[in-house]
Structures are given as C-alpha cells and as structure tokens.
C-alpha cells in the first residue's frame, strides 16, 4: 500500500547548541593544529622551520585563550561552570573535556611563555612601561633551561591529543544525530583543523610580518596534504553510506537528498575544496605566486569554519521525530551573529595585545611590501 503522509501540525524546536559551539570547535581545532606546526621549529629546533613556528605559536596561543570563552558562552548557565568541577563525571565526554581543557591551556601558555621569554627579558632592559611589563611577565632575568620548554611543549602536545579526541568523541557518540554518529567525524575535525590553522598562519604571515615565503610554502604544503586526506576521508565516509555499510551515514545521505538547501551547501563546499587544493598546487609550483598565498589562506580558514558550521548548526535542523526540517535563521543577538563577531573580535584583541607586549616576530623579516 502506497500512501502519502502529512503531519498536520509539526512543532518547531529551537536549536540547542548556538553558534558559540562552532566558534569553540573552530578555535580549539586551530589551536591544537597550530601547536603541531610549532613542533619542527620550536621543539625540534629545525632552523628552516623556525619562522613557521613563530607565527604558528601566536596562532596557537591566541586561539587557546579565546576558545574556552566561546565554550563558556554556549552554556545557558555560564556562571555555573564550577559545577563541572564540583560534580566530576568520568563517564561523560564533556566532563572529561572540562578537565583536559584548563590543563591544556596552562601548558600552551607555559610553552609560549618559555619560547617568548628570552626576547621579553631583552625587551625588559629598555625604557618605558612595555619594558617594565615585560620584566614582570618574564619573572626575572634567570635563565630557563631548554628542558622546561621541551617538557611543557610535550605536555601541551599530549593534552592536545586529548582535546582532539574528546571534541571528536563528544559529537561522534551522539547516535541520535546520524550525521554525527560516525568515527570519520573526529578525523575530519582534525584534518580541517589543520587546513584552517595553516590558512590562518598564512594570513598572519601576510598581515603582521614580512610575508615570509618559507612560511607560506610550508603552510601551503600542510594545507595541500590535509585537503587531499580530507577528500579521501570524505570519499570513504560517503562510500560507507552508499553501500549501506553504515546505516547512520546512509540516513545522513537521505537527509541530504531531501533538502535542496543542504545539497547546495554540500556542492559549494566541494567546489571551494577543489578550488583551494588547486590553488595550493599552483602557488607551490610557481614560486612567484607564493606571495599571494593569502588567497589560499582565506579559503582554508573559510573551509575549516564552514565545515564546523555545517556539521554543528545545520545538522541540528534535522527533526528527530517529526516531518521536515526545523528552520534555523541566525539571530542578531549574542546567541547568534553578535556571538560570532564577538568571538572573532576577542581573538583579534588577544592577537593585538600579544603583538604589543611580546616581541614574537624577532628574527622574522618585518616590512610587509
């Protein structure tokens, strides 16, 4: 018997996670990915990766500081955040995350502090309030042995792995949302995080330093490799759905088919992805083009952010029980647009404050052309 079914009165629920969640997932992924980019230059001491490490360290620190603010803002009861620590809940991924996050933050700050400290100490010798402040921040003129940097760096790396796993698992265990319920998602989070982090490094390299070509080249390579891997993972993910091997992906594909808006965004994502991958190839192949890497940088950041927007916001518009899709229009208030702009504004502020206080680009070519 074939029949057409109409749901007479479909209730509409609001979304439960606001754009703040996208901001947190974006910032924290950029943070742990950029941390990886500091490893060869800063932790392993490879000379030709040192400029990359300098820019990446700034990206890591600024995003690590701002990400948790967005997370806090996504709670409907932000002032109750201490409940996380008063009611430790080892079986909840989110609770585990609440333990990992502050330790990770402290380790990243310690790592950056140790990396920037020699230059700060030097700056403290000078005159004026910046010199004075630098003296306070560097806590004296004693010499910090290198093992301190290595230990805090390794610690931060270890905890960044924890952050990577928990942010991925937190979403992937939600069976109620077919598009989330896949192990490929955490992998995609990490890969698109790398794309965005490398993109942001390229942008900062263009805007705040002398557009160092090595930094551009190394970052473009990271973008390229991560994009190729993302494409591979996406292909595997989709083929799982087509073959019906994973019913959850299959169901996700059905939602995709039923919604023209979604299809449009998926095609858009595909096109931007191809454009980005091709542009990295062109820029890497033609040395004269490296100076224009910022175009690829912008695209890379755009992809990293939009992927999270799609996955975290759009997926919430799929009704679990009732017919059709909930409509989500981004609000202008603090739970919507203002939140997004606010987080980016805060990030920019963090960036500028660090830029004023810390001589982080010491040793980098300065004058942007």
């Amino acid at each position: 018997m074939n029949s057409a079914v109409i749901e007479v009165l479909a209730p509409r629920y609001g979304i439960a996670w606001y754009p703040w969640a996208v901001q947190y997932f974006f910032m924290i992924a950029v943070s742990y990915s950029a941390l990886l980019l500091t490893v060869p230059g800063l932790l392993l001491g490879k000379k030709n990766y040192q400029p990359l490490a300098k820019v990446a360290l700034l990206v890591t620190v600024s995003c690590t500081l701002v990400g948790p603010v967005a997370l806090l803002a996504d709670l409907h009861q932000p002032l109750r955040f201490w409940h996380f620590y008063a009611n430790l809940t080892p079986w909840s991924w989110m609770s585990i995350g609440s333990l990992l996050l502050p330790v990770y933050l402290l380790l990243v700050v310690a790592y950056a502090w140790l990396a920037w400290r020699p230059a700060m100490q030097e700056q403290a010798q000078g005159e004026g309030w910046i010199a004075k402040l630098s003296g306070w921040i560097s806590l004296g003129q004693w010499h910090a042995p290198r093992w301190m940097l290595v230990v805090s760096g390794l610690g931060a790396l270890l905890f960044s792995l924890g952050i990577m796993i928990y942010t991925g698992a937190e979403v992937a265990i939600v069976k109620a949302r077919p598009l989330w319920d896949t192990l490929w998602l955490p992998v995609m989070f990490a890969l698109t995080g790398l794309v965005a982090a490398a993109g942001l490094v390229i942008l900062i390299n263009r805007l705040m330093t002398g557009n160092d070509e090595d930094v551009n080249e190394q970052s473009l390579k990271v973008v390229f490799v991560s994009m190729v891997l993302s494409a591979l993972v996406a292909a595997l993910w989709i083929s799982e759905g087509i073959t019906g091997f994973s019913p959850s992906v299959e169901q996700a594909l059905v939602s995709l088919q039923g919604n023209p808006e979604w299809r449009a965004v998926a095609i858009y994502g595909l096109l931007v992805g191809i454009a980005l991958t091709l542009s990295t190839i062109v820029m890497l192949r033609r040395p004269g083009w490296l100076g224009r890497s910022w175009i690829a940088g912008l695209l890379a950041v755009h992809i990293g952010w939009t992927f999270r927007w799609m996955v975290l916001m759009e997926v919430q518009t799929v009704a679990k029980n009732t017919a059709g899709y909930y409509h989500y229009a981004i609000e202008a208030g603090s739970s919507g647009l203002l939140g997004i702009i606010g987080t980016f504004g805060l990030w920019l502020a963090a960036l500028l404050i660090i830029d004023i206080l810390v001589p982080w680009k010491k040793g980098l070519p300065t004058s942007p052309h």
Partner: protein
Amino acid sequence: MDKIRRALLGQIAKLTAGAALVPLSSVASAAINDQPPRREGDPEKRYAMLIDLRACIGCQACTVSCHIENEAPLGNFRTIVSQYEVEHEETGDSATFMLPRLCNHCENPPCVPVCPVQATFQRQDGIVVVDNEVCVGCAYCVQACPYDARFINEHTQTADKCTFCAHRLDVGLLPACVESCVGGARIIGDLHDPDSQISRMMKEHYSELMVLKPEMGTAPHVFYLGMDERFVSRPDAKPAIWDVRDQQGEEIGYEFSGH
C-alpha cells in the same frame, strides 16, 4: 521492497518492545558513555506508560494539561500528540493517525551518561529527571535524546523534559496528561507490580506492543498499543503547518501571563 522493509521494521519494533523489558540496570558501569548507577526513587518500582492508540482521539488535552501543570514556556512541549493524515495514493481514501509523544523513560537513556554534571539522572524507579539546580544548560542531553523529548527551558535556562510527573506520582496522584486524557488512552503504572493495570495490559497485548525507534537501543518504557509500524521511526511525512500565527504574523499563544 518498501513493503518488505516496512514489514521488517515492524518486526524489529515488536521484538524490541519485548527486549525493552529485560532489566538493564545491572549493566551500569563507569566506562565512558556507559550508564551510571541510578539514584533516588523507589527501587521496588519501575514506572512505565502504555498508550492505547485505539483510544486516542488527538484532542491534545494531554498537551495542554501538561503545559499548565509543568509551566513549560510557550512553544516547548513535554508531550505533544503528532497528528498525521494518511492518504492512500491509488484510492484517495484518507485516515488520520494520532501519536502522543513524551519522554520514553528509556531503560538505556542516552541522555543520562552525556550529562557532564550528573544533573540528568535516572531514578531507581526508572524515571529520568533533571536536577535544574545542578544543570549548567550545556544542552548535550538535548542533542543525545533521539526523540526530541528535551528542550532548554528559556525561563530556567536549564534542560526540561517529561518527568512522568514524578512530583505527582510521589504523592499518589496521576500525571496531568493521564488525568486529563478523555479516552483513558494513557496508562501509567508499576511494571514490578504484576497486578497493576499496566502489567496486566502488557501481558495481554504483549505481542502487539511497539516502542519508538527501537533501533536506537534505548529500550523505551512508553509502549504503544495499536501502533502502525510506519510511524515507529521518523515517519516519511510532509509537514503541513509549521507554526500557528495570527493575521499580524504574531505567534498565537495560550500561555498565562506572569510565567
């Protein structure tokens, strides 16, 4: 193909209604995302609801009385009766189908282990509740419930859901929705008491009972009698009206002022 699939789904649905009765409380452990131990409530009891769809006329009396009893904000519902119009594509005959929805007080509730502060928990009598003094409003439980049974209450800024009217049960009253049901379609009771009405009805209709989305493995404890298997999981339906607005485009509310 469609027919086979539906028949199969129906089969699964029925079987799992049975499986829903296997007690899971013994599997509580502390691995990540496992069910934590239950607390509070009467360990001698296991509350459940049976909804006799043959007696439901879709009047939404339960929706309204629940809304008044539990003071949910406008537009949020702890229970609602989904109303479907089914039209036979060849003959054009049409029929309606009513499906009251509420929290299933699952035996394996995915909303519980996700809660980072243990605000959402399952009582020993099976009722899943939220302690809104503890809840931080992270909405993780809202995401995790496969039935859209939860929402963030904009008045309290914490998670809200059907509690089987535990505050009424605990003092010997029936839930508001049960009390107000004109057809007597909602039967609540203790499954551990073999003489309760629900236990007797479950025994009598055992093979016909169905639960919603059995494939989610949640072991729901709201059982449906007279269920059509096409509606067990998210039905393949078109929404007719999204929300009710007056001519000025304002949402029409029915809430009392001062809430």
